[in-house]
């Protein structure tokens, strides 16, 4: 009854059932053991030395910038998550561009932000230094870093034993160097892959895509999952001379003829199995006739070159068909990011009647066209600040050129003066706050000074965010 294990065994069943020692005596002896055991804590030996992080190349940002980052990485500080994440993105971009890296102790916070914010991931990787990848390796929740890092470096073969993220990274990197080898890797395993992994890997063929990929992509059109077939269609659609494009062009030509300067329309009579294989969905959404729906899809996938240039839109369209035809062409212009077609279509389409199509076209515009359209829209006092302006402004690449910034500020001020649509004013000002050059902080503050109480909050907030961005950039100089 003198060993700890004996005492413990007796205490477990109770001295009533296992007599031989008084309860108080048992506790007294156990106390001596307890002190002995606690005081005798010995070091553990034989643990491996962890691998050190690879050497860093870039310096850590200075203190002020480090604090700024700590604030931006913390979800509790800004009430407005959209603004916070946009500023975080700007911080990361500007820091990396200037050759700085984030302080290492903030990397776990950044990695956690990146788990939910996909669009920030490449920025986090760029500003995280070499330590980021080293750290991410140690926590399965952060493996997405490998996918992005792998795209920048080729290295170990992660194809055979890597995680899904690492396999994607490996394929991406390989496609960049040797597209044929990348395709072979995928083709060889294709039939054995789970459909989730197929859906993740197939889009990577967009990198280094060429005519040699066509045969495989054609075969994928028979895949069982629509999501995967759609990826193959997107890729085949971007291959200029693919058989897929030929088929779609032929179908489109069969429906559209130009006679005496008028586009006349004969929609497909039915949706045959070949069309379905090429991705045409037979059942229309509510409110559209099925033949019109098939036509729209055929036009959306037919190469725009089928019609010559955007001058094609100079023709009038057979009565009753213009909406369907323009919508199909707009989808094509949007898929192919064809700036000239998008510009011509925007002139032709009734902006107010088809906001969804118009929204699709803006991203296809070139930066100059976008800026011009944005300036025009802001100057139009009669139009108000609708959703469309938001679309245009959101796609104008930041930082905005000074003409646009000036036009937006003037437009906002004029709308505030006329007390129109305060909520639109607020939304547009939020976009402006994140995209204007920060040097406009003083101008925005001046507008806030001379604005009456109704719009003042909007301009104060705008000036405040611009000022904050201005300071943020200075801290990184």
């Amino acid at each position: 009854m003198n060993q700890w294990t004996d005492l413990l065994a007796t205490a477990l069943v109770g001295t009533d059932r296992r007599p031989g020692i008084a309860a108080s005596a048992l506790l007294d002896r156990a106390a001596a053991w307890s002190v002995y055991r606690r005081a005798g804590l010995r070091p553990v030996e034989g643990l491996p030395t962890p691998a050190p992080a690879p050497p860093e190349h870039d310096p850590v940002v200075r203190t002020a910038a480090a604090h700024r980052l700590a604030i931006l990485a913390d979800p509790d500080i800004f009430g407005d998550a959209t603004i916070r994440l946009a500023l975080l993105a700007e911080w990361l971009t500007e820091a990396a561009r200037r050759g700085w890296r984030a302080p290492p102790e903030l990397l776990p916070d950044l990695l956690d932000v990146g788990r939910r914010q996909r669009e920030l991931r490449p920025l986090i990787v760029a500003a995280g230094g070499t330590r980021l990848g080293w750290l991410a390796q140690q926590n399965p929740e952060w493996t997405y870093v490998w996918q992005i890092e792998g795209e920048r470096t080729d290295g170990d073969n992660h194809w055979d034993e890597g995680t899904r993220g690492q396999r994607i990274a490996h394929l991406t990197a390989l496609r960049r160097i040797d597209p044929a080898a990348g395709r072979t890797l995928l083709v060889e395993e294709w039939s054995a892959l789970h459909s989730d992994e197929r859906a993740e890997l197939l889009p990577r063929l967009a990198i280094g895509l060429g005519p040699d990929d066509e045969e495989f992509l054609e075969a994928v059109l028979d895949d069982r999952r629509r999501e995967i077939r759609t990826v193959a269609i997107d890729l085949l659609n971007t291959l200029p001379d693919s058989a897929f494009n030929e088929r779609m062009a032929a179908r489109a030509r069969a429906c559209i003829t130009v006679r005496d300067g008028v586009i006349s329309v004969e929609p497909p009579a039915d949706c045959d199995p070949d069309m379905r294989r090429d991705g045409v969905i037979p059942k229309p959404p509510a409110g559209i006739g099925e033949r019109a729906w098939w036509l729209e899809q055929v036009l959306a996938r037919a190469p725009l070159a089928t019609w010559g240039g955007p001058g094609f839109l100079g023709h009038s369209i057979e009565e009753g068909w213009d909406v369907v035809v323009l919508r199909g062409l707009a989808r094509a212009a949007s898929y192919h990011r064809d700036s000239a077609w998008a510009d011509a279509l925007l002139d032709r389409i009734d902006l107010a009647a088809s906001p969804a199509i118009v929204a699709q076209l803006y991203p296809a515009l070139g930066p100059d066209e976008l800026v011009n359209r944005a300036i025009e829209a802001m100057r139009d006092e009669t139009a108000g600040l609708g959703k469309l302006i938001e679309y245009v402004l959101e796609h104008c690449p930041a930082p905005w050129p000074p003409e646009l910034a000036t036009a937006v500020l003037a437009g906002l001020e004029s709308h505030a003066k006329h007390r129109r649509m305060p909520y639109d004013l607020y939304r547009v000002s939020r976009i402006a706050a994140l995209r204007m050059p920060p040097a406009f902080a003083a101008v925005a503050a001046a507008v806030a000074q001379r604005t009456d109480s109704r719009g003042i909050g909007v301009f104060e907030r705008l000036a405040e965010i611009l000022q904050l961005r201005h300071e943020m950039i200075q801290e990184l100089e």
Partner: protein
Amino acid sequence: MTAWSAEQVLALAPDASSGKAARALATPSSWRETGHSAEPLAVWGLCKGSGKQPYQTCVDLAEPAYRCSCPSRKFPCKHALALMLLWSADRIPTGEPPEWVGDWLATRTERKEKATARKPGVADPRTAQRRAESVAAGVEELDRWLGDQVRQGITSQTGYEHWDTMAARLVDAKAPGLASAVRRLAYAAGTPDRLLTELSLIRLLVAGYRRGAELPADLGATVRTRVGFPVATDDVLARERVRDDWAVVAVRDEGDDRLTVRRCWLHGTRTGRPALVLSFAPLGQPLAADLPLGTAVDADLCYYPGVLPMRALVAERHAAPMPYEHPPGTGSIAEALDGYGRAVAAEPWLERWPVLLAGVMPVRQGADRWFVRDEAGDAVPLDPAAGHPWRFVAAAGGEPAAMAAELTTSGVRPLTVWAGARLVLA
């Protein structure tokens, strides 16, 4: 004086939200007419608030002490913290204190002189007698209860209620120390080995209390503290003073739904002695913020009586806190464990012991077991309650780093890490 680091400033924040609000305010555009001076050591400025008048904010850095005309009841308020953050980032010019700053500093000096002149009160001996009787009765009841546990088998009882009932009786008996020891048994209840350990150590305390008269004075004082007798601040301040450059090596706030406790671990740069300065505040109320992490302050400390002097009060400061670069007094894990062994032998009820480790790195074994290993190859487990030490891992980058930690019966809890030139809250 070198400015403090931002971490040191933020360690002064009464709560997390103040620190965050302060960081958001710490931009030059929110401030005007800022300045700082070396003599008197102060920083001041006007901060734009929601009202028409800007807030006047001033910090006496020697203490530090704060004044702000904002209505916030937090202390220091976000404005004072933001001002110090700007100062820490070297974004405040030197200048002459304006009149409102000078006036305030003058009133402070006056008040301080008055405070030193105040006389301590004398406790009523009859109150003490009544309390001793009540505690003695509680201790006897507890001893019977301990015996009952062992007679019936220590795992026969489950559920918080079982422990809470006894704990509540001990609170009534004015033995809050014993009460919380009994309440903590609930956490050990799932592990018989731990439960027997904790029960036996309570029994040891009971035995010690009964034989209080025979114990050496220091050990007797430890037993009384553990049982829950309060020690008057004035009595502590009347004890021997220990002057040193006290380096603040860790600051950590803990709390429940009512009370926040700020634990400041100090290390005597010359004496090598550890000290723990506690401050308390109701939830949401300000905590004392006069011992910034990463600074050392030349001061007199008075230790609470006990066999293992640890908890202390700052009796007098001789200079303003100065930042130090390297943490003092770090050593190997083997040395730290030897020290811990001696400390437990002296004070069997020890729950946390401060350790300063040199050249350590976190090592993971399996999915979620972590150790801290030093360059000699010795390691000690991380307290699982501390979670994954990602900040430590990230800051150290696989290179040896210095660390201040608490050694508990479940392993070490990292508090501060010095990785290269960076001080990081682990």
